[in-house]
Structure formats: structure tokens, C-alpha cells
């Protein structure tokens, strides 16, 4: 009965991601307090806030790395609050990490292949893939999309920082993502690499929505249509990029204090 109810509510719901009253405590410390956010399918949103505002904790609750202390999380209408991370990913959720979380002992191609394999069937397959295997072809296309073709045989530990960041994004684009969480994708990138990043983000198919955490306003405000400001684990303000940019309170908080 519950499953049927879930399905029905999934049909009626239009939100890609819906957080209701999400709170996360670490001991006595509230990292997130009563967060309520609704993001439409295909919507692109920035989450801004100074260090310690709870942005990455928010991502960790959505991906299931931490369970929220209270509140519910729905993904395309389905209640995923208590799902383990891999079940959320298999439903089309993806994320990237602020500090690259790659497989350093494997080649670029193996990294991307694992990402493609993780969201398809036969994860335990004991047969080596052939070169004309559909997943191998998807792997090659993805490597090309993030401009890493020339280094695809290399160990990830040998890549330059910018290349690792590109690979980080490639891993999140494998399979059929429906919604992606980008955690500071521009961290440590050169101005040229930042322009490439903006190109990659704006070139994503329109049905893929995302939330991006980014300190670089030039990147963040150019690739989103809405902004959520966080402060001390709470939502502080929501609006369109130009509204947030010109808001005196935001300027006071975000540009005045805590952010160098």
C-alpha cells in the first residue's frame, strides 16, 4: 500500500528535489536547522553562504552520506530519506566533491568506466568488457566530453589538478543523471578552466537540474536561475541571481563577514 501511495504521489509531484524541515545535529551542534527547499526538474540553483553555513552538510544529507536527524527528503516524489547512498544514485541523483574523490590507483578510463557501470546492471560481472561494449563506448564519449581523451590511459594520481576536477565532473555525468549536486566545482581552477567549466555546465541537457555550491560569483551566478543563501545552518534568503546580488543584507553577510 505504501509503495502504491508513493507512486501516486510521485505522479502528482513536480519537484525534482524536495526537502521538508531537514535538521542535522552533530552532538549538540546543529549543522542544519529546519531546511525546506523545493527544486523543480531541470531547475538550476546556487547555494551560497560562508564557510560553515551548512552547504556541504546539506549535500551529504541529500546523497545519504549522513541521515538527517529529522525531516524528509523526496526525490522526484519518492521518499528517499532513509535510503542508502547507492539507491539514491541509481534513481538518477549525482554529486561531485569539493575535494576530488577519485580512484587514484586506476586509470582515467577505469574511473569513468566504473561510474558508467555503477548506474547500470551487472555491477558484479566477472567478464571483461569488449571494446565495442555499449558501456565502453559511453565511457569514451564521456571522456571526450570533459576533454580528457589525451590522458585517458594515465593513472589519476598523475593528472594535473584541473584535469582531476574535470574527471570529477565526468563521474557525475555517467548514465542518465536527473539531478546533480556540484560541490565547488571551480575550486582551484585557472580562469581559462573556469570558462570551460561554465561551458560544460551550460551545455548540460535542459532536463538535468542541479544545485551548485560555489564561492566564485562569476561562475555561480552565470549558470543558475535561482539562488538560496544559507547562514549558520539555516536558509537565509531565496531569489533570482540579480535579487540576491543587489540585496543589502546579503552583501553585508556574505561579502562583509567571513568571506575573503
Amino acid at each position, binding site marked *: 500500500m505504501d509503495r502504491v501511495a508513493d507512486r501516486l504521489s510521485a505522479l502528482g509531484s513536480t519537484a525534482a528535489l524536495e526537502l521538508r524541515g531537514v535538521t542535522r545535529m552533530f552532538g549538540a551542534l546543529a549543522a542544519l536547522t529546519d531546511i525546506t527547499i523545493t527544486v523543480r526538474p531541470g531547475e538550476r540553483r546556487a547555494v551560497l553562504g560562508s564557510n560553515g553555513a551548512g552547504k556541504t552538510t546539506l549535500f551529504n544529507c541529500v546523497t545519504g552520506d549522513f541521515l538527517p536527524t529529522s525531516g524528509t527528503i523526496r526525490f522526484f516524489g519518492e521518499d528517499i530519506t532513509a535510503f542508502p547512498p547507492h539507491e539514491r544514485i541509481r534513481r538518477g541523483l*549525482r554529486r561531485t566533491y569539493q575535494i576530488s574523490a577519485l580512484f587514484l590507483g586506476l586509470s582515467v578510463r577505469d574511473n569513468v568506466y566504473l561510474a558508467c557501470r555503477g548506474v547500470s546492471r551487472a555491477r558484479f560481472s566477472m567478464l571483461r568488457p569488449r571494446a565495442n561494449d555499449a558501456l565502453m563506448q559511453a565511457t569514451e564519449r564521456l571522456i571526450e566530453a570533459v576533454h580528457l581523451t589525451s590522458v585517458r590511459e594515465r593513472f589519476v594520481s598523475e593528472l594535473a589538478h584541473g584535469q582531476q576536477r574535470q574527471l570529477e565532473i565526468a563521474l557525475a555525468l555517467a548514465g542518465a543523471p536527473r539531478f546533480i549536486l556540484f560541490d565547488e566545482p571551480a575550486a582551484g581552477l585557472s580562469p581559462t578552466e573556469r570558462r570551460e567549466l561554465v561551458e560544460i555546465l551550460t551545455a548540460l541537457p535542459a532536463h538535468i537540474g542541479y544545485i551548485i555550491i560555489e564561492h566564485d560569483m562569476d561562475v555561480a551566478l552565470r549558470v543558475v536561475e535561482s539562488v538560496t543563501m544559507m547562514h549558520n545552518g539555516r536558509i537565509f534568503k531565496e531569489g533570482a541571481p540579480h535579487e540576491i546580488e543587489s540585496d543589502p543584507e546579503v552583501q553585508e553577510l556574505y561579502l562583509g563577514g567571513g568571506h575573503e
Partner: protein
Amino acid sequence: MSLIQEARAREGMLAQPGTAPQPAAWSVTEQPWAWAVAALLLIMPLIANGFFLIEIFGTTLILGTIALSLMFLAGYGGMVSLMQLTIAGFAGYMVAVFGVSGNANISLGWPWWLATPTALVLAVLFGTLGGALAVRTEGIYTIMITLAIGAAFYYFTNQNWAIFNGHTGINTIATPHFIGIDWRSDIAFYYLTLAVAVACYGVVLYLSRAPFGLALQGVRDNPRRMAALGFNVNAHRIAAYAFAALIAGLGGVLQVWNYRQISPGSVAVERCIDILIVAVVGGVTRPVGAYIGAFIFVMLRTFALDFLVKVGLDGNRFRLLIGLGFLAIVFWSSDGVIGLYERWRKRGQHRDTRPGGHGHG
């Protein structure tokens, strides 16, 4: 296991810029001398006498296969399991219990072709259950919990008389005879161990590039990211324990056929640690390391005693020699003999490619 990552990273740094390294592609076919070793192993019965054939090479292949199961878990999965010998010993005991032995009150007397698969299935079950416990822990706690399983099994065999016949163990275990061959005769048994070892080695090498093995290496490098790519990390780890248990079980069956008896001494805690020493001395990043480590271990165990007596020391100190050798190898290379060899080969390459380099006249 950070040790392996470090070793890999160092390997990566040592690689020459501009030459694409081939991840985990180090196989028999690339190494010309490996063909020589393979040929030598095939014609060994023509060269070696019965003692060398079984006590040195047969034992090396059996010990290496058990160590290979640890290499698979530690090298690809980052999980150091000290219960691999326990699983092998359990398989050996099951062969004795279900098959034919001198202890008719215990052994069920099944033919070998029924008793052996039964023993292997039970060994896989044992490894899977132990693995399911161990994957809830990381690093040193995995070592502790698997060591605890090994110690518990040792004491259990000592005290249980109904199945394991207590500290006397089970003796004169029957070995297979079929297609007119006594498979425990020296030459036949040598080829049997060689066939099993080659098959296990080949399968592990093949799996390292198949989705199951790649995913395991992903779990080793970054379990959290693997979950964020849609993998059920613990299920993968448990499956790795199950597969490793099959390999260890095969080694255990050969072991019990070799000695024709099994007792708690065969599954003692020191034996479990021997397997760790074999794997680490050989090098855990490549399957071949398990067999190299086993060869060194067996050679030392067999000849260190004579050597010590010859130089006027107490022969019982041969374990000291093994310990010192272990320390020396681990001190100079975090990846055992394989690591030493790789370093030597890289240095050779470097000298060759240096423009106007000396050494080639």
C-alpha cells in the same frame, strides 16, 4: 589500505612522463623470462626429484594459492584478512569429515568427487559469513576480527571431538584415484597443484580487469565515492570474501591431500600469520607476488635449519632467519619483492633512455 595506495602512487610518480603506464596489465605475456619460468614449471618432474617436486614446488604452489586469496582481498580490496588460512584449513577438515579417513567414527566416507565440492561450498559459506562480519570494520579492526575468527577456529578444533577429533586431528585421509591415476603420487600431484595454482592465478588476473575486480579496486581507493556512483560497497566486499574463500578452499583441499592428515596445528594462529608474511614478502599489488613470497618462505623454512647448523648456530632458530628476511624486505620495499623488482626495472629503463648516458659504452 593506505600502504597500497602509497605504493601505487609512487609507482605512478616513477613512471616516465610521456609513456602511458598500463594499469594492472603486468602479466606473463609481457615478461619474456616469465615464459622461461612457465616452461621450467612444466618440465619440472624431469629435473627435480620427488623431494623437490613436492616439498618445495608443490608446497610453494599450495601456500601461494592460499596467499593469493589474501592478495586478492588486500591488493584489490584493501582488506587485510588473517582468516584465509583458517578457511583453507576448514576446507581441509571438511574433506576429511565428508570423505574417507582413518577415523571411521567421524568420516562419512563419501567419494572424493562428492566430498571435495561439499568442502569447497562450506568453505565459501565460512568465508562469506566471516566476511560479512569483517566488512563492518576498517583497517586494523578488520585484521583484529579476522584474527579473532582464526584463533576461535583453532581453539574450537582443539576442543571439539565430535567433528574435529580434538588435538589429535584426523589421520590417513584418502586421496583421489581416478582415470587410473593415483593423484597423490609425486608427479601427478605436482601437476594437480600446478593446474590449480595456474587456474587461480589466471582467474584473479582476469578478474582484475573485469567489472567485479575494477569495482573492488574502486572500493579500495575510495569506498564513499563508490557508493556515490551507485555501488553497494559492502555487498561488493562480501562478494570478494566469498571469491577469496573459494581460492583459499582450493588451497586447503590440496594441502590436506598433500599431508593426508589435519590437526589443530595446521590451523594455528602462527600459520595464519605465515600467510600474511608470504603475501607481504612477495608483494600484495600483483597476483604473482603470492607465489614469489611462498617460494621464498618455503625455501627458508626448508633450508634455513641446515644453513644455521652449518654455520654453527642452533638450527631451531630458523624462524629468526625468516623474521630477519621479512624485516629486510619490508624495510626496503613497501611492496615486497615485486616492489623491489619494479624499482630495479624502472631504474634500468631510466638509464637506457638517458641521452648520452654512460653504462652502454
